[in-house]
């Protein structure tokens, strides 16, 4: 019981000392940059302008992606055969590249 009282007393004193130190810190370390409201206003307008520009860019990008997807879907719907041919060609090229790579590696290994 006595120990608990001592503990509490110690903690209260510690917190008081800490508060004292923090109060002193507030007085001793002022901000070196203390801009007037007019300077803050200029910064705010610059930040807002930049934000608007970024938003515009993002919206435009979203619109382009959406248009591409919709256009692609419409194309597939209107010309399924052309789409199948394009897909087939793409696949053939990809398989060809893989095959050439594999065979050329095999060929190199035989050389040694």
């Amino acid at each position: 019981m006595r120990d608990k009282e001592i503990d509490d007393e110690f903690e209260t004193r510690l917190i008081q000392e800490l508060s004292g130190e923090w109060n002193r810190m507030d007085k001793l370390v002022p901000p070196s940059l203390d801009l007037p409201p007019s300077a803050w206003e200029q910064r705010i307008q610059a930040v807002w302008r930049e934000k608007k520009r970024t938003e515009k860019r993002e919206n435009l990008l979203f619109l382009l992606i959406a248009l591409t997807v919709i256009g692609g879907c419409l194309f597939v719907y209107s010309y399924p055969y052309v789409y199948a041919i394009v897909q087939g060609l793409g696949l053939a090229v990809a398989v060809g590249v893989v095959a050439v790579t594999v065979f050329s590696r095999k060929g190199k290994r035989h050389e040694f």
Partner: protein
Amino acid sequence: MSQERERALIQQAQRGDSAALASLIHEHYSFVFKYLVKVSMDPKMAEDLAQDTMIRCMENIGRYDGSSLFSSWLITIATRLFIDKTRRKKRENSWMKQEENARRLRWNYESQQEDWTDLLDLMSRLPADQRIAILLKHYYGYTYDEIGTLLGIPAGTAKSRVSCGLTELRKEAVRHER
């Protein structure tokens, strides 16, 4: 600044009035800076973070919903920016830098012929999360629930951080006294 005037300024700022927002920021800049000095124990880092906090405030003023005080909202932004920065610094292996930060503050004290106490030294060595929790609880007077909301942690964790921090400070203080 009275609460009513502050509320009116916030509403104007949310409607796009840059003069109102400038006035709000001007009023709170010193408060945020002083909070960050106590959190980081580094005036230079505090200055950088205070500016970053204000930029975040400018960008996101529309999202402030008034559920907490404006100053608490700024403290939340400032604390998260500080935590992000220290995480990044940790990755850069900056134990040396942390020592350097406290040295900068110490130099600030000594240049004004003020004592750098053992308690300040102990505070500077305390883990930042415990230092923030003690500061918010015992200097700014937030409840554990509020600290939890500010830091995005459960209230129990906030309580244990305060308790662990104070225990650590006590242990070190007793060791210093001997």
